[in-house]
Structures are given as structure tokens and as C-alpha cells.
């Protein structure tokens, strides 16, 4: 009795046999990572209630200005319309495409599945430039074709409108919906559907009472993801959106931070609005995904779900599905490529005598910004992806294996960047480091810090699911065989997780290369990156050169994907 009584009070904490040094090392890294992902949100809030830089007297001036300013209100309304409409569009298209490709007898459904996720590899800038090339009211290919068909000047489509912005954003978001939903459609247990059919349900009833309700958590998670992504989207509102004079919160934040006179307090207050929306969405998304656990379906081995027969509608639906799939990747890439070879970009300029390689020569060899920005971008993407993956391994180990005292807190902290739009994260990071004299502001390091902060959660999702799949006996056997914890991770865990590590590395590499909203407030002329350079060229309006530049961005992103995709694993479930 005395023995157990003593044990209850003076018991050392249990740590799965890891030595204290290992634990201390992991804890320090984990603590640093938690601070890194959470301070920007705190600083955005502080900045929005401070008269000047952080540390100056508190004020409600900016929050009041947010409520009073007509531009803020208009931007909020525009952002709301844009978010709701593009999310709805992406949901309908994403769910539709995934159902058609996973559960129907539509011709070419396998190819459709591939084409639906292809846009993830295409930088959104390609989509923007491509759709400007296709749908500009004056020089867009579609309008030129329509005009020549009609014999008079006809504007069939116009991307410089709210509808145009929604169209591009919806196409950009569709693959994310597709990815979240298609797996559920594919893996659903045929027995559940057979049970419904045997119970007398018609095919339509089956769809509405069994198949779709079973996917509800995935559908909700997809919806919240696209709401966060569209509300915080920067590229489309600040390129075509500004050209069309449609202001939205992210583009307004950029202007308030950058234009003269800068109003960083107002920018922070506007960011705060986006942060609140994002964090609320991410909270409900996590909840939906957790609840999804009870819907988890383990399909029978090799059992393929039955396919819905579309009958007469097979070909018309296939035509529509492929048209949308083409619109989101192949068409814009073709349009950008065509534009890249044109001497100048104007109505009726697409003629053989106007074709040239001059744009390539100029952009790749003469344009002063291209190589510095490409070097910076590739360096940052390689370092950032590597750091994200390494940190993710440490964080996942701490949460899953060490079950450290703060693992719950760490898990919560690590979803913050998922809910905070890049521009708001940028405002928060800027607020801190601009105050550090002679510090990292204006260096590549601050950009690296921003990228790692934003993309740690992505890497963690991959690494955690890979670590969960490794039986702890494999690690214990290594420890008993004489290897220390760190050697065990190096010799057992890392090799076993390699496909997931490479997959997450590639994903983070690709998104860092294209990311702009994070760094638009943090770069300076000596640390310019590809995506910011693209913004400059966009401002100058030389579209053929812009086309070359954006193709360069796409190619740099695709090279490692092509090299490593055979040894990578891209799914996080």
C-alpha cells in the first residue's frame, strides 16, 4: 500500500522510453513551431487596435474606420458575393465531376478524373493569363472568334467582370473539391447501397438518401475549404479584379499597406475580418472531418461500387464535363502558350507573320528580374519544402509518439495557418519583424519564415498519416536492437515514410513557388521572387512577356514533380 501511495505522488512522467535529451530537443523545436504559427494572428489583432506600430497606445480608430469606410464596406460586399458564388460554382462542378468520374458509366471517366485534378499543378497565374487571353473583351480569342463568326464586333465573354472573376476562381477551386469528395464516392461500400436497393429505393432515392448523406462530412469539409480559399484569394482580385475596379478585402489590404499614404492599421483591421472568417470556417471544417470518423467506410476487398447508368445522357454529360475540365487547365495553358509566341497582343494579332521567339529571348536572357527572381523562388521553395517536412516529422512525432504534455495544444496551433489567408499572415509577420532593427526584414529569411509558417500544416497532414500507419513495434524492435531514438527515426521511420515525405515535399515546393499573397508585403527589390515579378509584369501590361514568365513559373514547378512523382505518394488519408 505504501509502495503504491508513493508511486502515485512522486511518479516520473512516462515517455515511451525516450531519453530526456531527445525529449528536450523535440520540445524546444515544437515550442518554436507553435510560436511561429500563432504569433502572426496575435499581431494582426494588436496592430488593428494600435495607433502606430506594435507597442504604441491602443485605439479603436481602425476598427471604427473599417465600419465607416465605404470602400471597406463595398469590398466586404464584393468579397461576400465573390466567395459565395465561386464556392457554389466549385462545389457543383467538383461534386458533379467526381460523381461522374467515380460512379457513372460516362465514357472517358478515368481520363476525366485525371483532368479534374490536373489544375492543381497549374499555377493560378496561368489560369488568369490564359483566361485574359481567351476572354478579354477586346483581344480575347473567344471574342475575336465570335466577332468573325457574327461579322460584327461581339463580346461573347468578358473576364473583367464579377462573373469573370467568379468563373476563374471557381475553376481554380474545383480540383480541391474533387479530391476531397471523389475518394469517398469511390470507396463507398456497395453493400450499403445494395441494402437500400433491396429495401425498395429507386436510384434517385438511393442517391439522395444514402450516397450523398454518407459523403456529408467530406462535402462540408470541401465547402469550408473553398470558402476559406476564395475569401482569402489574392491573385485573381488583385490582377483582373483591380483591372475591373472590383475591390475585395485582400486587394484592399494590399493597397492600404502599400500605397501612399499607407494605412497599416486599417489593413490590419481588414485582415482581422478575414482571420475571423477563416478561423471560424477552419473550426467547423475540423469538426466535420472528425465527425466523419463515424462515417468511415471500409469497403469490401476489391469490391467496386456499382455504376449508375446514364443512358441517353452519357454523351451530352461527357461533353459538358470535358468542356469544364478543358477550361480549367488545357485551354488556359494553350492560350498562354499561344500568347507567348506573339509579337504583340491585340485583336487579330494571332497571324503567322506575328509569331516570334523574341519574347522568350527577352524574358529569359535580357529581362533583369527574371533570373534573380527564379533563383530566389527555387531556393526558397527547396529550403521551405525541406524545412516544412523536417519540422512536420518532429511535430508529428511529438504529437503522435511522445504524446507530450502539450500535444493537444500543438495540434490546435498547427491548423491556424490553414484558416488565415496569406495576406493576413503577411500583415502579422510584417508587424513584428519591421520593428527588429537590422534584423531579417528585407531579407530572403523573412520570406522563408513566411512560407514555412503557412505550409507546415500541409506537410503535417501527410507526415502524420504516414506515421500513424507505422506500427510502434517496428520502432521498439530497433530500440531493443541497440539503436537510439534519433537513429531509429533515421533508419526505420524515415525510409518507411519516404513516399509521403516526397509527396508532401513536392506539394509544398509547388505551392511556395506560386504563392504571392504571403510575400507581397514582405519582399523588397533585392529579394524579388517569381510570383511577385509576375505581378510587376502584369502591372506593365506586356502580355506576351507575362505569358513567357508564367510559363517559366509552371515549368519550374513541374520539373521536380516529373522527376519524383514515381516515388511519391500524394494522398494524405
Amino acid at each position, binding site marked *: 500500500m505504501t509502495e503504491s501511495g508513493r508511486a502515485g505522488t512522486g*511518479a516520473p512522467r512516462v515517455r515511451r522510453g525516450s531519453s530526456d535529451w531527445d525529449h528536450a530537443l523535440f520540445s524546444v523545436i515544437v515550442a518554436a513551431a507553435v510560436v511561429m504559427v500563432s504569433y502572426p494572428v496575435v499581431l494582426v489583432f494588436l496592430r488593428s487596435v494600435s495607433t502606430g506600430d506594435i507597442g504604441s497606445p491602443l485605439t479603436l480608430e481602425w476598427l471604427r474606420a473599417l465600419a465607416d469606410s465605404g470602400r471597406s464596406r463595398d469590398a466586404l460586399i464584393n468579397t461576400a458575393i465573390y466567395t459565395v458564388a465561386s464556392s457554389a460554382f466549385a462545389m457543383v462542378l467538383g461534386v458533379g465531376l467526381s460523381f461522374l468520374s467515380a460512379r457513372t458509366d460516362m465514357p472517358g471517366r478515368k481520363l476525366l478524373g485525371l483532368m479534374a485534378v490536373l489544375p492543381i499543378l497549374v499555377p493560378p497565374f496561368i489560369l488568369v493569363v490564359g483566361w485574359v487571353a481567351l476572354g478579354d473583351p477586346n483581344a480575347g480569342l473567344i471574342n475575336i472568334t465570335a466577332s468573325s463568326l457574327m461579322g460584327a464586333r461581339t463580346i461573347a465573354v468578358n473576364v473583367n467582370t464579377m462573373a469573370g472573376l467568379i468563373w476563374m476562381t471557381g475553376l481554380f477551386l474545383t480540383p480541391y473539391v474533387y479530391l476531397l469528395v471523389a475518394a469517398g464516392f469511390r470507396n463507398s461500400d456497395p453493400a450499403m447501397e445494395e441494402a437500400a436497393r433491396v429495401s425498395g429505393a429507386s436510384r434517385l432515392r438511393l442517391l439522395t438518401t444514402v450516397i450523398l448523406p454518407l459523403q456529408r462530412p467530406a462535402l462540408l469539409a470541401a465547402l469550408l475549404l473553398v470558402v476559406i480559399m476564395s475569401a482569402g484569394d489574392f491573385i485573381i482580385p488583385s490582377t483582373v479584379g483591380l483591372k475591373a475596379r472590383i475591390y475585395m478585402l485582400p486587394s484592399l489590404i494590399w493597397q492600404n499597406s502599400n500605397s501612399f499614404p499607407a494605412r497599416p492599421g486599417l489593413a490590419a483591421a481588414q485582415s482581422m475580418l478575414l482571420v475571423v472568417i477563416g478561423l471560424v470556417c477552419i473550426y467547423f471544417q475540423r469538426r466535420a472531418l472528425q465527425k466523419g470518423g463515424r462515417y468511415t467506410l471500409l469497403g469490401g476487398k476489391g469490391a467496386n461500387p456499382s455504376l449508375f447508368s446514364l443512358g441517353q445522357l452519357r454523351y451530352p454529360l461527357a461533353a459538358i464535363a470535358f468542356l469544364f475540365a478543358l477550361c480549367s487547365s488545357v485551354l488556359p495553358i494553350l492560350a498562354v502558350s499561344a500568347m507567348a509566341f506573339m509579337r504583340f497582343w491585340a485583336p487579330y494579332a494571332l497571324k503567322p507573320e506575328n509569331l516570334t521567339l523574341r519574347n522568350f529571348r527577352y524574358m529569359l536572357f535580357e529581362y533583369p528580374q527574371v533570373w534573380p527572381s527564379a533563383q530566389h523562388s527555387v531556393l526558397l521553395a527547396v529550403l521551405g519544402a525541406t524545412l516544412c517536412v523536417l519540422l512536420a516529422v518532429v511535430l508529428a512525432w511529438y504529437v503522435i509518439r511522445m504524446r507530450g504534455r502539450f500535444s493537444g495544444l500543438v495540434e490546435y496551433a498547427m491548423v491556424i495557418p490553414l484558416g488565415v489567408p496569406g495576406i493576413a499572415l503577411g500583415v502579422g509577420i510584417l508587424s513584428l519583424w519591421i520593428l527588429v532593427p537590422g534584423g531579417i526584414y528585407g531579407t530572403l529569411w523573412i520570406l522563408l519564415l513566411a512560407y514555412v509558417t503557412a505550409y507546415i500544416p500541409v506537410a503535417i497532414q501527410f507526415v502524420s498519416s504516414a506515421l500513424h500507419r507505422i506500427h510502434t513495434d517496428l520502432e521498439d524492435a530497433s530500440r531493443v*536492437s541497440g539503436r537510439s531514438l534519433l537513429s531509429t527515426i533515421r533508419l526505420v521511420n524515415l525510409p518507411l515514410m519516404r513516399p509521403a515525405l516526397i509527396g508532401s515535399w513536392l506539394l509544398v515546393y509547388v505551392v511556395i513557388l506560386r504563392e504571392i499573397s504571403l510575400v507581397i508585403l514582405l519582399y523588397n527589390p533585392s529579394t524579388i521572387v517569381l510570383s511577385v515579378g509576375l505581378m510587376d509584369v502584369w502591372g506593365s501590361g506586356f502580355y506576351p512577356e507575362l505569358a513567357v514568365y508564367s510559363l517559366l513559373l509552371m515549368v519550374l514547378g513541374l520539373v521536380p514533380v516529373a522527376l519524383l512523382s514515381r516515388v511519391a505518394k500524394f494522398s494524405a488519408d
Partner: protein
Amino acid sequence: MADPRRVASNSEISGVSVTGLSKGYGLGGHLRALDDFTHEFPAGQCTVLLGPSGCGKTTVLRSIAGLITPDSGRIAIGSTIAFDAAAGIRIPPEKRHLGMVFQSYALWPHLSVTENVGYPLAASGLSKAEIQSKVEAMLEWIGLSGMGGRYVHELSGGQQQRVSLGRAIVGNPRAILFDEPLSNLDARLRERMRIELLALRQRAPFTSIYVTHDQLEAMTLGDRVVVMRAGRIEQVGTPEEVYKRPRTRFAADFMGIPNLIEGTVRTIAPDAIAVDTVLGTLPTRGWRANWHIGDRCTIALRPTLIAFATSRKADSRSGRVIRSVFQGTSTIHVIEIAGTAIAIESFSEERHNDGVEVAVTPVAGAIFALLDD
């Protein structure tokens, strides 16, 4: 066949001494997985920790390995103190020089058979040539010569089991820990592996601690058996002692004795205690010393130590067959005697209809187990 002591040169077999080990789970450690566990595991012998799931046997094993940290107590492997809560000593698993065979085999799928077996040698810093010769000798010894280049998924369950055994032995550990190593195998293979393990131990004595819930494995493999219950030791003894004379109701039940009947102590002699029961006066032996004539007690009757016949005999008690269940080599008859149902196992082909009157007698010379509780 290679001599294992050549495979494992400069052998250093150690006993393991565990003192006052406790381990709690839950808030404040109120769920006790292990409660003041003390036992000496003798060098060169196989000690089996036997008990149902949740009895703490695996906690003892993993504490010895260093894979979990107990709340209190002390573990010495040979002369080295591997863990001492009071003194703050906790040697990490990789420095304890043990071998371990896991229930899941825990073979690394990204390594070949050779690399799996050679892993502990590489960890100890041997040269490549030494590792190669030792691994080859070990592969020959476990009957997997020429399969070193294969990967784990290319092996059968029994072969995987042997690789995991080879890996546990190759580094010449001070003791080998077995965590239910046979429970993933099908019945036929389990039987064969059990016999192979036995042969292995005869060829090369090593200290082993073997965790199982299977009493047959415990009987055949153990030099000593430790029956555990709820984090405590219920009984320690040779397999024969535990089998013939379980100390408690729990141990009797776990050793597969279904018949626990009440009785009264009639006479006490130095080597046997006679107990009055529904079956008459039975000779028993127990562990507890302080019995008095007239005490109420419980005795465990192994179904093979009672016989019955349709013809009446002197000194027999009459009973009625409730049912007979044929189970291959033997038949289990459930017989009611004076309101008590007793299972009797018989090896004759004889069957009886339900309700038949029979005469029940203890097998001549049988001594029954008198339980402590």
C-alpha cells in the same frame, strides 16, 4: 548445424531481477497495470508470464526492455541496474543489450532478411565482414540459408517468425524477451514453432522471459511459470506445480479446471489433507499452512481425475448425466451430483443418454488441489 555459441561468441547470460515494480495509468495513475511486482528471473532459464489480457504481463516485459517507464521499482539485468525509480536511473532500451521477439514480428519491410537479422550487429558497431559471417551463420541456424536477399513480404508466417527470432538472438543479448510470439500463427504452425523453440533452448540455453496467455505454451516452454492477475503475481512455480496444484480459484480457472467444489476439512496429515465433499472424502494438497479441522474450503477437480461407470461400485456417489459433448480425442460429460454439476473428461468411446444414473469415483491415487481462497 552451427553451434549457437559460435554465432553468439563471448556469451554473457544474465538473470533479471525485478523489485517492487508498479505502473499506473489514467489520471494520477489510479488504474494499476502493475502493482508492486517482484520476481527473480534466473539466468539461463525460461520464465513464462502467464495471464489473461490486462493482467500486466506485457507491462513487466516492456518495462524490462525499457520501452515503458514504470512509476516505481527497480530492474537489474545481471549486475547492471537498468532502472531504479528512487535513484533516478533509467537506461534507454538500446543500452540494455536485450533481444526481443514481438507478437507482430516487427520486421522492417524496407530491409532484406539479411539486413533485418544484421541490424543489432550494425548497431553495436561491428565490421561489415563480421556482421556478414554472423548473419550467415544465424540464417543457417534458423533454416533460412540462401534467403538473405528476400524481403519480409516474400516470406511465410513461420519464416518471418524465425527471422524475428534470429534478430533477437544474433546480437548475443543478456536475455531474450518474447511478447506472445506465437499468437499470430495458425494452430498448426503454432504447434510446430513451439517445438522448434523448445529445441532451440535445448541447443543453446539463454535467459528468456516469455509472455503468453496460452497455458499449453506456458507448460511446454517454461522452466518456471508466473501466473499473473490484475498487476500482481497470483502463483509462481514449475509448470507441473502450477498445473497440478493451482493456488487460487483464479489460477485453477486459468489452468483450465472447470470444477471448483466446496468441502470441509476432515483430517490434516503432513502430506495430505482429507476433505469431505459431495464426491466423498478426497485426498488434497494445497499451499496454505493454517488449515483447521472443520474449515470450509474449495478444491479444484481436474476433469480427467474423476471417473464414472454405469454399474454401482463401493464408495462411489451416484449422479445423473446432464449432457455429453464429443470433442474428438475425448468426451466431456456434465454430471449432476447432489445438486452440483461436475465436468468429467473420459477417453472411452462410451456415450450416455441424458438422465442416465451413473456412479462417480475419484481416479485411484489422484490428489486434488486445495485452494487458498
